[in-house]
């Protein structure tokens, strides 16, 4: 449990650095450090499937962020009602912290009271599906309908991104002759 708290503090510090630092590359690297800490947290909590997925997706997001945000002067919104914004943020953080402390006190012991459905999966999962990785047997056999919906969501997201950032058919305002490649 001690390692978890150290990792949580590390992640919070990384998130604050990612917000506060002025350089864009340092900010992206700090976000990546937060994601790697989260994947180690998943590994400590005995969830290797989620840890692998988190690690891989984090690397992918880092590459996309570096390629898509560097060499661009994105505007920083430093002006504005910062007193009001800071007040709202600190009030929200204090409320969230108090509620979280109250909730963490009442949490049951890790993995102890097995629910009825989960007990069925653990006891009969291997015999019913033949898969020795119980996570896969749940997401692809017992709850495969959810996975179908998730795949549909990803399909829709890909179509939406390709629709928004496409090059063909976009209205050229200032420079009409830039269809050199693609």
């Amino acid at each position, binding site marked *: 449990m001690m390692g978890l708290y150290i990792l949580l503090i590390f992640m919070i510090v990384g998130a604050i650095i990612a917000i506060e630092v002025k350089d864009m590359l340092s900010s992206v690297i700090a976000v990546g450090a937060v994601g790697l800490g989260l994947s180690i947290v998943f590994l400590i909590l005995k969830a290797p499937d989620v840890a692998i997925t988190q690690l891989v997706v984090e690397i992918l997001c880092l590459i996309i962020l570096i390629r898509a945000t560097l060499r661009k002067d994105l505007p920083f919104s430093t002006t504005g009602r910062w007193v009001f914004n800071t007040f709202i943020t600190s009030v929200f953080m204090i409320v969230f912290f108090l509620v979280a402390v109250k909730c963490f006190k009442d949490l049951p012991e890790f993995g102890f009271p097995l629910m009825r459905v989960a007990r069925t999966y653990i006891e009969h999962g291997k015999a019913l599906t033949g898969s020795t*990785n119980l996570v896969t047997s749940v997401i692809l056999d017992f709850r495969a309908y959810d996975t179908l919906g998730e795949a549909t969501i990803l399909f829709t997201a*890909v179509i939406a991104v390709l629709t928004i950032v496409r090059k063909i058919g976009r209205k050229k305002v200032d420079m009409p002759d830039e269809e050199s490649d693609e």
Partner: protein
Amino acid sequence: MSKEHDKGMSLIVKTITRLTVGLILLYGIYIVLHGHVSPGGGFAGGVIITLSFIHLMLAFGKGVAFKRMSKNMMSLFESFGALFFLGIAVLGFSGGYFFLNVISKGEPFRLFSAGIIPLCNIAICMKVGAGIFAIFVALVLLDLDTDKKE
């Protein structure tokens, strides 16, 4: 020196990429095929396979990567993955209901076991990998586009 040395990053990066990109691709395939035996699965394995292509694209430029995985291939993989997954689901109606495990379970801890689960993993791998690579390509090309405008 082949003509691949024209674009992309420096010679050191290209040499290291040539050594590692096959290993990354093989590891992704391993993660997908062993999704029902060990941790991993279709989603993580598909993203690892995509990362190998992205690695190629970052080091050698977009021409070499598109030669190995063109846009039509991407769209084909994406659609075929979705249809394959749905087809496996509909195949369950032959035995009774949606997503029924119709193929025989086999022996546990073997590669060819667990009925439809490895097939579902392969379908999700194709779908996720092609989709995420398409998103990456779209964002990178948009980046080039905005660079040219400035």
